[in-house]
């Protein structure tokens, strides 16, 4: 029983990471019908930004005297700063890689290939800049273990899961209730009619990238706190998995990204609980394949009827 509940917490934590990354794929797809394959690497860049921010604030570069700020204060500063800086990375990609192609009316396929290349550039740029040595993320929060009866859970795990749920409700509100959210949904339906509503279309697209990459940065920070070893390829596999989670959930739908993320995590942890862990990805993706076989548009997806 305790093991089951422990596993549920682990799955919720991993699901939170997948979900936070998946929503970036789903937001950009929902607006531009573009699969932003650089997104997993934006998550990686977010983790590195968090690393440099926190080590700076801890006083490792001599600007701030060590011990000036408490770990909790540093975390409070690192969350918004990491999100802002990572969203700048996302917006820069949009600006220098995707927008020029869009303005020239390039087919979406070329933009997707460009996104793949941008991801590789981020990975290898990191490698060139910082070398192959791994970075050890500092410990910001003193690890607290809360025990309820036989179940124990760390404060960090609770923080990660709580954050994912807050982000979900926030985004769901933005997308369904605000005018900007309506514009985001409308663009995918008929982007040429958007300016006729007096809406500057590029502002909406930039905002979409701000949201997606900002939350990827947040995921990078939380992931680095949970698994404190950073390396340039850390975003690749988790990015692919989050993308698949978004597709299984129904790409373009926020609920789908979250459901898909948690579903993937539960299947993975479930497999590992019963079978040898080497079978994890094989069995997890087989399950997802069966789901797509049964519902090719994803759990929340709807078949597009008219597309221009």
């Amino acid at each position, binding site marked *: 029983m305790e093991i089951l509940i422990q596993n549920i917490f682990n799955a919720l934590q991993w699901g939170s990471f997948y979900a936070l990354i998946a929503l970036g794929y789903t937001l950009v797809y929902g607006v531009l019908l573009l699969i932003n394959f650089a997104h997993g690497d934006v998550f990686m860049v977010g983790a590195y930004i968090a690393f440099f921010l926190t080590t700076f604030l801890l006083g490792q570069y001599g600007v701030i005297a060590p011990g000036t700020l408490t770990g909790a204060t540093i975390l409070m500063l690192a969350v918004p700063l990491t999100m802002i800086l990572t969203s700048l990375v996302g917006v820069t990609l949009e600006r220098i890689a995707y927008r020029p192609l869009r303005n020239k*009316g390039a087919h979406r396929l070329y933009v997707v290939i460009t996104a793949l290349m941008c991801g590789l550039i981020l990975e290898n740029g990191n490698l060139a800049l910082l070398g192959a040595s791994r970075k050890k993320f500092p410990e910001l929060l003193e690890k607290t273990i809360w025990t309820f009866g036989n179940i124990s859970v760390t404060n960090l795990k609770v923080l990660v899961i709580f954050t994912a749920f807050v982000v979900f409700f926030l985004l769901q509100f933005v997308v369904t209730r605000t*005018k900007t959210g*309506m*514009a985001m*949904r*409308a663009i*995918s*339906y*008929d982007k*040429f*009619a*958007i*300016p*006729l*509503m*007096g*809406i*500057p*279309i590029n502002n909406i697209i930039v905002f979409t990238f701000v949201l997606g990459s900002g939350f990827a940065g947040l995921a990078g920070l939380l992931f680095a706190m949970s698994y404190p070893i950073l390396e340039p390829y850390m975003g690749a596999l988790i990015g692919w998995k989050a993308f698949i989670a978004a597709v299984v959930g129904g790409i373009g739908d926020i609920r789908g990204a979250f459901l898909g993320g948690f579903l993937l995590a539960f299947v993975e942890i479930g497999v590992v609980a019963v079978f040898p862990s080497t079978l994890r990805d094989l069995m997890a993706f087989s399950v997802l394949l069966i789901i797509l076989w049964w519902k090719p548009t994803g759990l929340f997806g709807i078949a597009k*009827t*008219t597309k221009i």
Partner: protein
Amino acid sequence: MLLSVKNLHVKYGNIEALHGISFDVEEGEIVTLIGANGAGKSTTLHTITRLPPPDGPRVTQGDILFKGQSILHTPPHKIVSDLHITLAPEGRRIFGNLTVLENLTLATYARKDRDRIHGDLQRVFELFPRLEERSKQRSESLSGGEQQMLAVGRALMSGSRFLLLDEPSMGLAPLLMFEKFRTLKRLNEEGLSILLIEQNARIALKFAHRGYVLDTGEIVAQGTSEQLANDPDVKKAYLGG
């Protein structure tokens, strides 16, 4: 003068679609451009609002003045948000994945006079009660006629002072068509200026104050609606004798 189009030459790719047309619209008028399919009517509207299709119209000569200022270099969204010129495009172009109410709300995105939005929504619902009944429905589930109402309602919600209409009669049964034109006439009497593009010259000349006849990118006739309706050439070519 509200709108003044001067010697406008427009190209699509390498093909010149408009060969130097000139016309104008006064504040408070309904002006119509009539002409056959392919005469350049939609091109004219798209050039004014710069509805950007993938390979949009390009002005090679001439000018478009709005209240005396050239708008050739005004960004498309500012034509709506700052100049209050709105286009209800052909084929309606409503956002089918949004509800009726969301479509109407989205049109108010750039409005600065926020206190008037609620009143305008009531007005749209009063003009088109069907839209209120269906406000929570996905708009692609509306009938063609209802989608047309939504397209006009949406233009009004964006705070339009000057409405450009592309083939408002298209796809409507005669009864609905007359109802729609009566609504437009009513809006015009309340101060909305209208530039109307129609293949159905008969109904356009019935409701417009003045008109221009466009033929393969050139203006071939102009005058008050009565003058055009009684012009033997116009009668023969556009009014079925």
